[in-house]
């Protein structure tokens, strides 16, 4: 990344207002690794000040020059500008996904089975939503309860998500229609 035109960052928002909507941090770490190696792009983690410590868990061990933790440091306006500059945005079913979709950025939304994507998925011209069709979804569990160890998110494999997103974004076939 040195000596060349800097690549547009990949913005990752790994949090949501409900933990049940969050992809595990370990999956995000793996995804960040794929971004670094396959897309050779800097990664910016965004979130609020209270989410800083969990974001530190995510960035720890990654080079500070390539993976930046901005939790609690950006105003909404700065965040919007960052999203506008992003190559793409990765988020759970959360506000940043809606922001990115609304701003027309390529958006990968890792969608928890707790909610119906029909009702809540981000909408925009470049949105790709991936969810795992567990038999218990949607459960409307909201803030707390999951009897199945959050299987809808835990089983949403980061490599598969990365490949599906990359292929869908490139217009390649990704599977059969419903």
């Amino acid at each position, binding site marked *: 990344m040195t000596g060349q035109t800097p690549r547009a960052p990949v913005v990752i928002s790994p949090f949501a207002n409900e933990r*049940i909507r969050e992809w595990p941090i370990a999956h995000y770490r793996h995804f960040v690794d794929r971004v670094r190696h396959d897309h050779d792009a800097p990664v910016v983690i965004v979130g609020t000040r209270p989410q800083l410590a969990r974001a530190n868990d995510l960035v*720890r061990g990654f*080079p*500070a*020059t390539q993976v930046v933790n901005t939790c609690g440091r950006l105003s909404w306006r700065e965040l919007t500008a960052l999203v506008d500059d992003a190559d793409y945005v990765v988020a759970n079913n959360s506000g940043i996904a809606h922001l990115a979709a609304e701003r027309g950025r390529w958006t990968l939304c890792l969608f928890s089975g707790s909610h119906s994507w029909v009702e809540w998925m981000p909408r925009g011209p470049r949105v790709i939503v991936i969810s795992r069709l567990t038999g218990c979804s949607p459960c409307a569990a909201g803030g707390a309860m999951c009897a199945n160890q959050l299987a809808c998110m835990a089983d949403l494999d980061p490599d598969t998500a990365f490949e*599906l997103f990359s292929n869908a974004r490139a217009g390649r076939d990704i599977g059969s*229609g419903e």
Partner: protein
Amino acid sequence: LVTARQITQNSIPAGLAAAMPISAPPEPASAWLDLLSDEDRRLILFLLSHSALEPALRSPCVVDVRLPEAAERAAPLLPDTISIEIDGSQLGAAHATLDRLDGEQNCMLLRNIIQCLPDYRTFIGHAFDKLAIGGFLIVTVPHQFLYERKLQMPSRYEQAHLRFYTPGTLLAEIEEAIDPCRYRIRLLADHDSGFDYGASLLAVPAGGHEIVLCLEKIAPPPWREEMEQDERQSASYTLPSPFLPAYQAEAEANPYQVIVPENPNIERVIVLKLDHRGDFMMATPAYRIIRQAFSRASIALVCGSWNRADAEALGLFDRVISFDFFPEDASAGPPRLSPEELHNAFANLVAGEQFDLAVDLRLYEDTRELLKRIDAPHRAGFDPYDLFPFLTIPLNLLVPTRDGRAEQGLMLCADFHTQVGVHHGFAMIFPERTEHSEKQFLVHGPYTRLKPGHYDFEVLLEPLAEEFELYCDLAANAARQILAAGVIRVTRDRFPRITLRSPEPLERFEVRLLTRAAGPLPPFRFLGVRYRHYGFFVGVHQRESMALLAHLVALRLQHPYTVARA
């Protein structure tokens, strides 16, 4: 560029080493201090003045990591030192140098170096990894408001400085680099001994001008692994329910659902509005919305032949197709053709045509099947009861007339229970004039679900001798919720009435009859409970419903998507 140039065990004069025994707190040996620069001497004296650092500095061997420029100017900070010189930004070499240390170091000193490293995070983490449990990491950096005395980069003095530091920003980098459960902070201090606060901004700072941070490495606590899951919102999902099957075991059976953007071009639209003249007119706002949303598309309208002239006169459609699904005058009799014949006739009408979008604007379901006969990727229509899975844009609005309708009915006495009376055909008989205690249960049931709303109940009681009084209440949720209670009179001329308004659905609703007082109860019979559920008038007008569907179609197809399974 920076390279790790040297790892050397400094040769320490034997006499001097003896003057700094490692078994006791180090004391500044004047001979050694004489070898140090003024800056380093101030720093070591500052460090030694903090008892919190005593265990660190007492370590048998301190690894002193610093920039080569600093190494050229002065001796290592302590006599028993491994000195590592890391040069600038060639991080790979710096890491390779650290790799040569084993992971059992007692004390590492990162002296005014991380401000020059682009990737402070992995370097700090790597240095920390080299410490033994109980080992110390001492980090010093130039203080933004002692050394630089500047609000913003770049540095006044060193182009190689990439960041300014305050205690807060230094600590933030440490927390990024090292798991806070793996260390305890023993010291975080501003080193300003001898600093001349009276000097001007242009003068090179004299005296201490650094931040000193000392961490002690601790073993990870046993709860560290659990911590990730132990937050309030996640606590429950870490514990599988013993009562439910684990979906995790079925992971392979759970496909991925991927929603991807689709070509937004809508060029050929077909709209169905097959009902009567009034229905056709009420759809006018919806026609206009569709025309506006797909202004460049070719729009065909299919309507009853009686509406054709009006449709053409609107000027909103590129083509008007007549199809008489209903008779023009519904009061004159049923349609001539069966639904199946009508569907086939419509299929022939649209055969060979392709559309991008098909919309059925009729609120009731009877025309919805026609959409299946149209070759279009997007099919929109009302579907309040989820009956038409082939719709890609369903709208599930309430139908006010149907969903708000009034109801009346009978809760049969067969669905009630008694321990006193006798079920006999359609009635429950209490034939004997028997003694009862006060508030003794006579009848209870039927434990049914009630929709929200306004109810009138008539308790169908008939005296078989003289008139008398009973106690009655209405309850729900296994009698946890008492909705109404009072005394009712069992008379010949009218049934007792009770009114109930419930804003929410009621589960296990029951009517209970009890004796009012102890004593003999006259004979009577119970026939059940008659109820009336009043209708309600809420929802949206037909005209508004169709406009909402048109808006929904426009909004959905602004960013159309398809759903795939992978």
